């Protein structure tokens, strides 16, 4: 497995773990008064995500330093571009749904913000999952 594929696995698993925990907590705690606490929780999750990714990437890089230091080759750059393109459309649909929730379902602006955040996380999950699929398939 190449370093880039390992990196994609690290990012996918860490995003799923951290965002899964965050979105599991949000609906149960969402009241008008709880938003400052939820925003703090969001920052803690971001910090946790960064720490998990940094530590995991350092461990993987130490085991294969040459691979980690090598620049992306043309196939890896192409895989990244294709995966980001797919994720872009997922994010676009998610944002449109979030805006629709406000217009058609009467969701408040905080609920819409969490829906947009969910769309972003979903797009990132799709981004890294697509990279893994392309790496497995060759392209």
């Amino acid at each position, binding site marked *: 497995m190449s370093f*880039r*594929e390992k990196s994609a696995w690290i990012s996918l698993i860490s995003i799923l773990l951290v965002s899964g925990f965050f979105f599991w907590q949000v609906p149960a705690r969402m009241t008008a008064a709880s938003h400052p606490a939820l925003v703090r929780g969001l920052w803690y999750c971001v910090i946790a995500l960064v720490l998990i990714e940094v530590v995991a990437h350092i461990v993987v890089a130490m085991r294969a330093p040459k*691979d980690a230091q090598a620049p992306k*080759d043309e*196939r890896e750059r192409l895989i990244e571009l294709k995966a980001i393109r797919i994720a872009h459309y997922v994010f676009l649909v998610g944002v449109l749904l979030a805006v629709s929730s406000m217009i058609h379902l009467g969701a408040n602006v905080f609920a819409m913000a969490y829906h947009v955040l969910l769309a972003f996380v979903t797009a990132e999950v799709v981004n890294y999952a697509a990279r893994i699929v392309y*790496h497995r398939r*060759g*392209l």
Partner: protein
Amino acid sequence: MSRLPISNTIRRLRFDHDEMTQQQLAERVGVTRQTVNAIELGKYSPSLEVAFRMAAVFGVPLEQVFEYHGGGRGDEQKW
């Protein structure tokens, strides 16, 4: 295994050149071992630059490394 209209003789050429490994070829061409493997299996079409570098490593013309089997159009790699 190949999905692309381009075949190659990289595996045989590697064997003929002192049983060169995919990793060794990758380092000389400037790509990853996984990319060399994907090219050999016909899963990925390299750029012209990488194709020419491979031919230069083996010291043979490009046509001895890669062969195109497709028609004039309609065989583009699906995105």
